[in-house]
């Protein structure tokens, strides 16, 4: 058997080619307009960086939202859930501090007992980190299919800048053999460093962040280092890609990072959902990718770069295959979830997100 040396390059590339065989988005139905948040804290409706954000309902959490995204991914993959060898969820909002989210999701979607199911945590890149592991698992031949999910019911302190954007949603990806995929994974590259831009200590309800420090040394340095290195190592340039998706804490950051890397607005906008669903933390870049897969054509190349505070970025290069056209209509599209919309006011939001002290 051929055993090529693959560790002396920066790229993560498997000998056995892998790809996304099924994907599924989930975005809850409720929307909190940015003007509601602005009105409460500033007395004016102006100032929100986003139009609105998606808010999970009273009976939703990362487990229920992951179940629906995973069911959508299974519909598109058209595989027996018992063939999955991993059910992995990356999130900042796991419902339990101790008790895996993945086991509940695995039971609900009909996966077998023969799986890996630990939860992942790396701020907003927990889901893409799980995808890297899924690629490794399938690429090594240990598994034919592995499910990686990025999902959050994001936390933002009342009156903090994050309250405008911290939203709920995410997406699920089933990684499998490239020949069965809707998008082949060419390679990935991850760049991480100890950068204290944003964190949440145990038992704290809301995260702390380093204000403007979250920009240059954190978001931009990691996204651009990961993206640039991946392009260089692949010998590719921005214009080779039809779409580029970046972690999206607000509309400005991904647009600037993209432009710094040579991408245009036309490449970035189709995957830029933050203006209408907010920043879904570990779900953010992954649900942007699902929106792009919903419209991509065979042969399109896609760049995906996540960012997680603390800090790091995972960059993926993907090529869409012919299978996309027959598979993508098997489950609701990302746009359909965005269109299913019920506006709520700030008072309802505080109830839905458990911000009222019941004494």
């Amino acid at each position, binding site marked *: 058997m051929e055993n090529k040396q693959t560790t002396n390059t920066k790229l993560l590339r498997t000998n056995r080619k892998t790809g996304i065989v099924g994907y599924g988005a989930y975005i809850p139905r409720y929307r909190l307009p940015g003007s509601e948040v602005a009105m409460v804290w500033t007395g004016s409706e102006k100032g929100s960086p986003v139009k609105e954000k998606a808010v999970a*309902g*009273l*009976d939703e959490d990362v487990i*229920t939202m992951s179940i629906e995204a995973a069911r959508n991914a299974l519909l598109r993959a058209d595989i027996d859930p018992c063939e999955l060898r991993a059910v992995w969820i990356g999130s900042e909002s796991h419902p339990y501090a101790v008790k895996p989210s993945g086991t509940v999701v695995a*039971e*609900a979607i009909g996966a077998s007992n023969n799986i890996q199911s630990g939860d992942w945590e790396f701020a907003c890149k927990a889901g893409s980190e799980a995808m890297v592991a899924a690629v490794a698992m399938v690429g090594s031949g240990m598994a034919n299919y592995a499910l990686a999910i990025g999902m959050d019911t994001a936390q933002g302190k009342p009156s903090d800048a994050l309250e405008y954007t911290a939203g709920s949603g995410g997406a699920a990806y089933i990684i499998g053999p490239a020949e069965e995929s809707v998008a082949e994974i060419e390679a990935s590259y991850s760049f991480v460093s100890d950068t204290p831009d944003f964190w949440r200590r145990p038992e704290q309800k809301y995260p702390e962040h380093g204000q403007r420090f979250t920009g240059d040394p954190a978001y931009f340095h990691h996204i651009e280092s990961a993206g640039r290195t991946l392009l260089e190592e692949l010998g590719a340039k921005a214009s080779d890609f039809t779409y580029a998706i970046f972690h999206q804490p607000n509309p400005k950051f991904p647009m600037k990072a993209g432009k710094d890397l040579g991408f245009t607005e036309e490449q970035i906008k189709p995957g830029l959902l933050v203006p209408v669903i907010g920043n879904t933390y570990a779900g953010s870049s992954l649900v942007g990718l699902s929106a792009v897969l919903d419209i991509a054509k065979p042969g399109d190349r896609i760049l995906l770069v996540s960012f997680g505070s603390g800090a790091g970025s995972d960059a993926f290069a993907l090529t869409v295959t012919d299978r996309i056209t027959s598979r993508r209509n098997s489950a*609701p599209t990302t746009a359909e979830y965005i269109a299913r919309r019920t506006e709520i006011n700030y008072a309802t939001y505080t109830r839905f997100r458990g911000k009222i002290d*019941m004494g």
Partner: protein
Amino acid sequence: MENPRHWRLNKQRYALVGEVCPHCEAKIFPPRDVCPECGGEAKNRFGFSGKGKVFSYTIMRDAPAGYEHNTPYTVAIVALDEGPMVTAQLTDLGSEKVEIGMPVEMVTRKIREDVEKKGMIIYGYKFRPVMQG
């Protein structure tokens, strides 16, 4: 909380997994191992599609213990496409008006949680207006 009681029901509660009778093909929910139609032994597992129609409904404003945080909510009797009737909450209604005969689909949601948030979270089926035709 009575963990074993809930744990035993995981499959039927999370994903509407019931049974199909090998003698008369009747679909059975909840699973009871004996066919209510023909009386024969029926232990073959059957996963319901989750599609159905509202047969009847009511609105709960005064909820039993463990459900208070969700009031007001709608409880419906749903006629599943495969035959059986189930009682369940409706969810994600937004501003949609519930009507008898309305097509609904199963979703897995939080059903119960203690106010102190110390106990286990009980997940299970609810129904919402169908997203796709």
